[in-house]
């Protein structure tokens, strides 16, 4: 038996019955990483600390390179944070350690989570385990690729505009962005503070519920963390959707949607209908404006959050060769120019523009108002629907290098995932098929705020009646 290829819940059963130990599981995964990571390149580096093996969930986990982990170099895959060793653990890392979780290592991402392909990383790209010429998606591409390639039982990622769900979709695994405030952001290096949320990437829906049980909950060190009771998410794993109302937004099925993706999602709709769900066509008239809104709101917040990386406080500090403006400003500019990659610079400049004098009303303020319209659309539909279903991404994974030179086409890859971040609601991606070329397709379900249980119930029912989640890439 290959322990590394199991789900976390299957592994926990083996631990309980004494058929395997957590040490064996850890060593099996390390062996798997050694064997396949030279091809996949999911890991940035392995963890220094040895596993503690205490607690009920001694499961090997991969951590995205933007979650502060004590003693580890955490860089957001950016040169500007090279050498930064976190002196503390993020809230979610504390919870993982307390549960007995074994941190395998730190996995790759797009620089500062700016991207949908993992190609803007200063470490170079991660590759999709299903086709090593293709991207794993992003920004949590390392997390998704590691789980899909059995290089981790499960992983943590972060999602600002789709960064958990889109790579989960591209790699054929389950990825959940929880409700804003459900999981503490303490120790997550911020991209866009009003949109960021940490969440699980797992091999199936049961593991997603288990990992949510570990990471969800109030944390006073994150002032946006919400003090609501946390349910036992595994109780939501019920194979029954009878009478549930599923909204299908007509705006989701328009041009730009790959016909193969469309067919898979339509098949999923039919399946859930046969299981007794009520399918309703709904309208989210402002969602076509979501990408434009996001690229104002998110970049504005990013330009402000990334102002702290100036050569004084963290990581890289450049020494300008000659004086241009004055010594201090030269040092800032030189550090930021050497430290940030082109996509980070582009987004910082775009956000700076949206916030700059004379443009604030036309861009940032207007963006925030359209955000309200998009949220109102979703609120309205949720008055009479339990979940909303769309594709996760309009296409399957694409070739490495294919979209690098066209940032806008890369941004459009997040067209279905962005509305959930703008509205703060939870959304999940589950595998729902494969293209003829053998690449995974993902189905997205969005739910009401703090109703992760409904998402888990519907996706569990879907999963119990399909076998997509059992397929493994050949590596």
């Amino acid at each position: 038996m290959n322990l590394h290829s199991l789900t976390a819940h299957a592994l926990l059963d083996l631990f309980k019955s004494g058929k395997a130990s957590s040490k064996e599981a850890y060593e099996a995964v390390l062996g798997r990483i050694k064997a396949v990571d030279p091809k996949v390149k999911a890991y940035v580096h392995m963890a220094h600390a040895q596993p503690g093996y205490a607690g009920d969930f001694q499961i090997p986990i991969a951590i995205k390179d933007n979650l502060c982990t004590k003693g580890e170099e955490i860089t957001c895959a950016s040169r500007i944070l090279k050498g930064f060793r976190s002196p503390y653990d993020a809230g979610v890392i504390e919870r993982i350690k307390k549960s007995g979780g074994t941190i395998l290592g730190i996995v790759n991402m797009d620089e500062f989570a700016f991207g949908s392909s993992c190609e803007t990383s200063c470490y170079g790209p991660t590759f999709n385990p299903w086709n090593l010429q293709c991207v794993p998606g992003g920004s949590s591409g390392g997390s998704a690729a590691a789980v899909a390639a059995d290089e981790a039982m499960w992983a943590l990622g972060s999602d600002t505009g789709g960064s958990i769900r889109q790579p989960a979709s591209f790699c054929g695994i389950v990825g959940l962005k929880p409700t804003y405030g459900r999981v503490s952001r303490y120790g997550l290096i911020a991209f866009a503070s009003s949109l960021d949320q940490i969440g699980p990437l797992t091999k199936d829906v049961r593991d997603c519920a288990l990992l949510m049980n570990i990471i969800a909950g109030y944390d006073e060190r994150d002032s946006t963390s919400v003090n609501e009771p946390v349910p036992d998410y595994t109780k939501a794993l019920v194979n029954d959707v009878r009478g549930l109302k599923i909204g299908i937004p007509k705006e989701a099925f328009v041009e730009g949607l790959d016909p193969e993706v469309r067919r898979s999602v339509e098949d999923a709709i039919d399946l859930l209908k046969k299981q007794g769900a009520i399918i309703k066509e709904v309208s989210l008239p402002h969602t076509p404006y979501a990408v434009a809104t996001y690229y104002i709101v998110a970049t504005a917040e990013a330009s402000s959050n990334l102002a702290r990386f100036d050569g004084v406080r963290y990581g890289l500090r450049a020494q300008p060769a000659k004086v241009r403006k004055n010594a201090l400003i030269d040092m800032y500019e030189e550090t930021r120019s050497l430290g940030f990659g082109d996509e980070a610079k582009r987004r910082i400049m775009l956000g700076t523009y949206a916030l700059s004098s004379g443009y604030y009303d036309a861009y940032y303020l207007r963006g925030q108002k359209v955000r309200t319209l998009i949220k109102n659309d979703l609120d309205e539909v949720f008055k009479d629907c339990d979940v909303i279903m769309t594709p996760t991404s309009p296409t399957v994974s694409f070739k490495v290098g294919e979209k690098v030179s066209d940032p806008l086409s890369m941004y459009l890859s997040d067209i279905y995932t962005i509305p959930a971040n703008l509205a703060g609601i939870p959304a999940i991606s589950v595998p729902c098929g494969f293209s003829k070329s053998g690449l995974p397709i993902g189905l997205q379900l969005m739910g009401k705020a703090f109703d992760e249980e409904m998402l888990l119930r519907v996706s569990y029912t879907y999963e119990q009646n399909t076998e997509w989640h059992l397929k493994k890439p050949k590596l």
Partner: protein
Amino acid sequence: MSISKEDVKYIAALARIDVPEDKLEGFTKSLGGIVQYVEQLQKLDVSNVKPTSHAVPVGNVLRSDVVKPSLISKEALVFKVPLIIE
């Protein structure tokens, strides 16, 4: 609304980023394309719409003034600083 090379130089200076001459054209083009794309928001009537800065409404969050364990200064502050007086 289009973006000129002068605009990019101005924004870059505000953002404390040095854009070298050979990259100016590329950034002007890509930023211009994105700004043109977001122009579609101008079509919407938002005159009676309140802005959303946060999806979950929260007010000021205060905590009680109690000392709690935190990083000790040895963990938080021991790092090398560059020479600043020459």
